[in-house]
């Protein structure tokens, strides 16, 4: 993988693939218009026996796909993070961004024929907000003071504080709309493009097309079957033998092999997912910013991207926003591997020889151990001894992450800049147990709160830019890579621009794709 010619050939191939698709369009104008029919079979790597249709408990990508097959949100996150009206035809915020009114689409019915009403929306949001709810979306919804129906086709949200990004929040998967009073989630009742036929958690699911689906050109397949496949080789084999039409999470090492098969297409999408070695800024020795800087200069990001991600990614710059976020600031200089600078900062911190323990398992991302071992080798040249401590895969998030001063972490990305910075880097995030570096910068807290209320895009950009610089210069995040999403599909499938917020077109492949 150190061969640059090889990488260039691959990007050439990807380019050629895109060209091929583009050429297809004029000669076959029908391809533009989605076609109905066919049985879509997709293999998913991320699932659990605990998967359910309970919207308060959507943890895996499998359940995320299933939710969006059966149900809709008020707003859909389209490719490039653009907000697309879904069950809400339009929305409007008050001047202080505290009151948001969503106008509901008319003529939408649930699978059982019941019409969509504001009461359904209120019930769906309150399902997360009620006392004793175990919802993971609850912390995000804490900003809602009240949600109520306004006439026959509108819903009003009163927020405690202004939030310009509120409409984007409503696109998160937990906030799918279920019928008023519904608590029997196993029925999978919703307004979505497909109707539930079969669901065995940890094994598979099967849905059939909703003949009354309200969206034109969406929900095109006759049936969609999802199959849970943990083993990457088994996923690849199943696609190669035609038992699957698509699968997610291609092993980067097998991309070259798969591309030899002319019936297979590899979709490479820039994502928001980032990998990090977070350092807790309130723990020794990372309380000193010079130690943190030494650690950040002591890692060769390029090499990790090349070796661990097989080149399918890009180096991180010690702040969590990638180019996939609206307010990413590309003007911040990329931090590069520099053992001398690392030594300089180490000396400034008064640490002659630093020795740290890095806790790692493959749970955050596959290849995490390799990344840690590479880091150990890089850091040795800067006089830093990194002891790699291998932790069990099970229970990693609960007993290692957010507990150890230095460990391995992955963030899949969030709906917008505000949610990511709020959860990961503000005092709100600390309270919710998400602030993995424990950064507590009054200025950063203020920026996040201020930018949330700011309608002026230019001002928001300036604020978020400052936030990125604070985290880059002063934070405890050693964010070394952004991963690309790699999915494999049959060439029989057709689709438009792919979304990068989750694998397989933002977990909405079943809704957006079709057989050409």
């Amino acid at each position: 993988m150190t061969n640059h010619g090889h990488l260039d050939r691959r990007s050439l191939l990807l380019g050629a693939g895109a060209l091929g698709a583009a050429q297809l369009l004029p000669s076959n104008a029908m391809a533009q218009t989605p076609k109905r029919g066919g049985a879509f079979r997709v293999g998913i790597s991320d699932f659990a026996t605990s998967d359910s249709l309970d919207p308060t408990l959507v943890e895996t990508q499998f359940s995320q796909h299933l939710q969006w097959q059966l149900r809709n949100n008020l707003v859909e996150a389209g490719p490039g993070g653009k907000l697309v009206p879904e069950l809400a035809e339009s929305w409007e915020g008050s001047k202080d961004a505290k009151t948001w009114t969503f106008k509901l689409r008319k003529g939408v019915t649930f699978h059982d024929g019941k019409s969509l009403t504001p009461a359904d929306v209120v019930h769906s949001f309150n399902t997360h907000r009620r006392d004793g709810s175990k919802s993971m979306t609850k912390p995000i919804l804490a900003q809602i003071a009240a949600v109520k129906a306004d006439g026959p086709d509108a819903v009003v949200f009163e927020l405690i504080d202004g939030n310009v990004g509120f409409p984007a929040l409503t696109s998160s998967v937990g906030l799918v709309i279920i019928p008023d009073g519904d608590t029997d989630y196993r029925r999978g009742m919703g307004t979505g493009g497909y109707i539930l036929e079969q669901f065995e958690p940890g094994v598979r699911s099967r849905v059939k097309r909703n003949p009354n689906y309200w969206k034109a050109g969406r929900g095109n397949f006759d049936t969609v079957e999802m199959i849970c496949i943990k083993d990457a080789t088994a996923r690849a084999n199943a696609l190669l033998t035609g038992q699957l039409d698509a699968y997610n999470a291609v092993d980067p090492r097998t991309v070259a092999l798969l591309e030899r098969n002319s019936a297979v297409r590899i979709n490479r999408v820039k994502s928001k997912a980032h990998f990090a070695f977070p350092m807790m800024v309130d723990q020794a020795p990372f309380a000193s910013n010079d130690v943190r800087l030494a650690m950040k200069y002591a890692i060769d990001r390029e090499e990790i991207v090349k070796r661990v991600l097989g080149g399918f990614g890009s180096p991180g710059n010690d702040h969590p926003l990638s180019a996939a976020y609206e307010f990413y600031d590309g003007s911040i200089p990329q931090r590069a591997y520099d053992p001398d600078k690392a030594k300089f900062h180490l000396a400034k911190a008064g640490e002659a020889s630093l020795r740290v323990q890095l806790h790692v398992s493959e749970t955050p991302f596959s290849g995490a151990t390799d990344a840690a071992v590479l880091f150990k080798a890089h850091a040795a040249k800067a006089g830093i001894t990194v002891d790699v401590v291998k932790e069990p895969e099970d229970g990693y998030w609960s007993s290692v992450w957010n507990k150890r001063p230095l460990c391995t972490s992955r963030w899949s990305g969030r709906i917008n800049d505000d949610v990511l910075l709020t959860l990961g880097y503000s005092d709100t995030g600390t309270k919710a147990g998400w602030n993995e570096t424990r950064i507590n910068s009054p200025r950063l807290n203020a920026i996040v709160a201020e930018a949330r209320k700011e309608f002026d895009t230019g001002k928001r950009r300036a604020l978020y830019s400052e936030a990125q610089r604070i985290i880059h210069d002063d934070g405890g995040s050693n964010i070394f890579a952004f991963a690309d999403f790699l999915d494999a599909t049959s060439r029989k499938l057709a689709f438009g621009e792919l979304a990068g917020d989750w694998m397989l077109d933002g977990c909405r492949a079943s809704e957006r794709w079709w057989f050409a």
Partner: protein
Amino acid sequence: MHGVLAMIAQRIALGIATLFVISMLVFLAVDMLPGDPAEAILGQSATPASVAALRQELGLNKPLIVRYADWTAGMLRGDFGRSLANDRPISELVAPRLGATLSLAALAAAIALPLGVLLGILSTVHRDRALDRVASTASLLVISFPEFFTAYMLVACFSVGLGWLPAISLSSQGGFLETLTMLALPALTLSLAVIGYVLRMTRAAIMGVMASPYVEMARLKGVGPWDVVVRHALPNALSPIINVVIINLAYLVVGVVVIEVVFVYPGLGQLLVDSVAKRDIPVVQACCILFAATYIGLNLLADILALLANPRLRRPRHREARA
């Protein structure tokens, strides 16, 4: 015959006691794993509040001993309880998985066991000749390959290369023939591993008997090699052969997790692994109990069959020391 019945009853009682001990061990082991079900189910997004809410709902705040007692009492009533992870009745989760595992094991056994025993007998008959050597080398080779390797080789050959058989074995409610096609590769993988063992053990058991004076006598009388092996040696080598056949049968039910993962076959082993990851204690318990019951039950069967096959074993006092 009365003595035999008493011995059988004694062994069954011992089996039940073993099951009870195993249930306690499993419960303790799962409880000692790091992390708890509420956190495992909620994953990285767990907040302290949501974990507390889920713990409350799952009844995890009760002491260990109370939870264990509740569970055992339920089991004795034939109620496996509900899954912590998805609140479905465990019997509903486990039944199709057990059925899947058993059908795969049955198919593999139907191929491997008769073939293994037959090849073992043929090897003794053709001792030290070409067939014996080939069988011996081949079986050693197949035993030495890790199963996932055999599995991938078969998939590369029969699925990706020739396109005859499916690479993953998740049938979509097909008929008998489709089910058989789906099961073909995993069953073949398992068979290859098992045939080797059965062949070698059968051969060794018969060889042991072949050294006895009465076989020598038969040979001197001019009995042909096939008759010597099948009519004179085999009946006396039967109990070790029954033993190895049944232990392999137990292995086919209990030890196939890797195969289930490679072929995406929704068997009991995979359910067990997935449930451990989610700390779904009742499901782990149920799977372990089923596995343990299978193992204990089959061992019991092996003992009983050995008793019936070898009259000398029925009189423990006069039992001879056996090599």
